[in-house]
């Protein structure tokens, strides 16, 4: 009787211990593989955390993509296993107007409302990423004429426009500098694909990685619509009480200083 009770306690604690051990290892692994922030998702994808929860990894978006842009992360690719992504330098997103990859998603991890205006599919609303220019390695910023990315951009003159400035070095040429407007850039990566440098000097990053955020502390006072941005900001005034006497005394009161 005593022995079976001991056996029972031992086997129960062992099972609980092993479950805890396995659970910790398991969750550590899942946490690690889902932590990849540098991954570009198909058009209409939810925010990364929601996307990872919602995607069932069926690959139907991959099958629907006519350009073989989308891939499913394989084992060993160091990306969240089985989820769809693309690498623009290899194959960019060609921004099909009918967006075949989105409506086939059975779980709404690719949300059709994120790429539609007035219930009409609108690929220009996609926010797959943001193109970023490395101005040190972009030859246009050296003064060499190159508008490969600008020409490749499907939203030419909106998502990428050229800024003309005078080239002081030669005194008679112009810089044609490509500038990305994040209001329009979809992150399709056609610019990255077209870039002529050995490693692309314009490349697409996920928007959370490639963009800053102003926050509620600054608004464009000259722009009425910018006030809307901070409409829901909670204003909180903090006052710090300063003793005016002490502030003066700190310069004059030598007593304590000499005592030490």
């Amino acid at each position, binding site marked *: 009787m005593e022995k079976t009770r001991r056996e029972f306690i031992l086997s129960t604690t062992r*099972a609980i211990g*092993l*479950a805890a051990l*396995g*659970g910790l290892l*398991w*969750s550590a*692994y*899942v*946490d690690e*593989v*889902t932590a990849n922030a540098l991954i570009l998702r198909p058009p209409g994808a939810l925010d990364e*955390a929601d996307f*990872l*929860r*919602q995607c*069932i*990894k*069926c*690959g*139907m978006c*991959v*099958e629907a993509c006519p350009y073989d842009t989308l*891939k*499913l992360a*394989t*084992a*060993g*690719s160091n990306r*969240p*296993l*089985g989820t769809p992504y693309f690498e623009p330098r290899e194959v960019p997103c060609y921004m099909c107007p009918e967006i075949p990859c989105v409506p*086939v998603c*059975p*779980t*709404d991890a690719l949300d059709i409302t994120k790429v539609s205006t007035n219930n009409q599919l609108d690929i220009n609303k996609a926010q797959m990423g943001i193109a970023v220019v490395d101005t040190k390695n972009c030859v246009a910023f050296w003064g060499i004429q190159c508008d490969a990315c600008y020409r490749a951009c499907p939203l030419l003159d909106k998502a990428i426009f050229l800024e003309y400035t005078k080239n002081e070095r030669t005194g008679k040429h112009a810089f044609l500098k490509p500038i990305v407007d994040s209001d329009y850039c979809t992150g399709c990566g056609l610019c990255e694909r077209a870039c002529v440098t050995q490693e692309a000097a314009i490349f697409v990053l996920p928007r959370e990685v490639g963009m800053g955020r102003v926050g509620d502390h600054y608004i464009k006072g000259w722009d009425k619509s910018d006030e809307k941005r901070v409409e829901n900001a909670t204003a909180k005034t903090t006052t710090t009480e300063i003793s005016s006497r002490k502030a003066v005394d700190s310069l004059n009161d030598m007593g304590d200083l000499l005592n030490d």
Partner: protein
Amino acid sequence: MINILHKHRFLILRRIVQVSLMLLYIAGNVWGWKFLQGNLSTSLLLETIPLSDPYAVLQMFVAGAIVSSNLIIGALIITTFYLTIGGRVFCSWVCPVNIITDAAAYLRRKLKFDSVSKKQPASRNIRYWVLGLSLVLSYILAVSAFEFISPIAITHRAIIFGMGLGWAAMLIIFLFDLFVLKHGWCGHICPLGGFYSVVGKFGLVRVDHDEKKCTVCMKCKEVCPEMQVLHMVGKSSEQVLSGECTNCGRCIEVCDDDALNFSIRRLAKERGNETSD
């Protein structure tokens, strides 16, 4: 020759089903066939009928995902299907990992590993612990926990969408089953197998044992990947009612005495004795 075919009739059928399903999925991805698209997690049959892995959907639900009606319908169709023909039919007739673990088990038998070390050190209930753990972790991590480590998903995605290091996952399972634990993955650990074992408890297609014909040669137990379900062999005439039976039909094939056969579950006990054949 005919005899060999007859002795492996279910095995051959199973391989045909497994391979042709994978081929249909591959054709869906590579050549754009519209017959069966997606993979074993979720697919679309004939561009209309959704099919979803109910265990994956359950994990999503626990993780707090918004489960679309498509997924619910797909999961219900699959669950109903396996409720009818026996839950773990998925394991032995559909799952591609089954081919790997069967190969390991075959090699173990041929190399006579099991006569050297008979005792299996692990419990077959581990899978239910893993099943429970996967749901707890899905809730805590807010993602489908098993789907991010599942060797089953790695394997079928590797076959359908491109290999990557997927072969390594297959090799790990093969070596584990060969050297570490007999029927280790499918019979002990796999939570999807555990899930379908629970579903399979209510399945209608059952292996039926006729004790009067049995000569107690024990060939069936030797070949069965879940031999605990054959506890009645040589003892009493009854159906294999455990949900852990995969309905693979290996026991029926190897039986030289026609003591095992597929049957439909007898729902009422007393009526069952009259209709049994």
